[in-house]
């Protein structure tokens, strides 16, 4: 059980509205590339909202925050919406501390070009 709790997993769900990535476990330097690879194919899909659900994310460090920041930047350039949702309090605290939070808010209200 310990192992499952600490490992990192990404669950993907695509609907007509959104590409949803549910992140589970611990996102650190060893897993940042995995998230980038999983999310990259969806960045250019401006027809759908890109959503990261962090409900089951237990840990993140600056490398994970860096991947989320680069996704926000890419979606911002495309004027495509991206949501980062269900952020646990201890992770929200790190987002506030680093200054990521305003960018999450800014990118969540981007309007889909065909919207």
């Amino acid at each position, binding site marked *: 059980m310990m192992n499952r709790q*600490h490992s990192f997993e990404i669950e993907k769900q695509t609907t007509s509205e959104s590409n949803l990535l549910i992140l589970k476990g*611990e996102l*650190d*330097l*060893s897993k940042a590339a995995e998230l980038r690879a999983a999310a990259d194919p969806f960045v250019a899909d401006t027809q759908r909202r890109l959503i990261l659900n962090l409900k089951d994310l237990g*840990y993140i*460090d*600056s*490398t994970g*925050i*860096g991947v989320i*920041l*680069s996704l*926000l*930047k890419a979606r*911002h350039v495309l004027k495509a919406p991206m949501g980062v949702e269900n952020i646990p309090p*201890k992770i929200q605290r*790190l987002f506030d*501390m*680093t*200054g*990521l939070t305003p*960018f999450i808010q*800014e*990118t969540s209200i981007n309007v889909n070009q065909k919207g």
Partner: protein
Amino acid sequence: MNLDNRTISMTLPAEAEYIDLVRLTLYGLGTKIGFTYEDIEDMKVAVAEACNNAVVHAYEPSNVGTLEVRFERLDSGLKITVRDHGYSFNFEEKVRQASSLHDKSLEEVNVGGLGIYLMQALMDEVEVRNDGGTEVVLTKWLSKSEEMV
């Protein structure tokens, strides 16, 4: 109480996949000493950031070195030293320049220095030394209410 004998040391490969072992050890020791859950979570991130820097910057990819982590119990806190024996990359300079993303636009921000910024924000004291490698010394004090436990 003689605290000199209460130091816990780990030597591990300077590779990303081993950093979780440092976090697990820190969690165990932090709980034993009586730190709050929040303080332990803060220390986990800060210590991992110091390890990240060593893993990413200290050694050539073809030559994986080692990472030494030492946990020293203080009278009213915990001192964690993260040391590598690799290339020193002006860490002291980076520490001076580290900043958050605040007051910048999404177009101009980049993630450089964020790890060091977090390290400073999450610990009470951060010291960096370069001498044939990089040594980062992180200290967290027990708050008054924790000490009474």
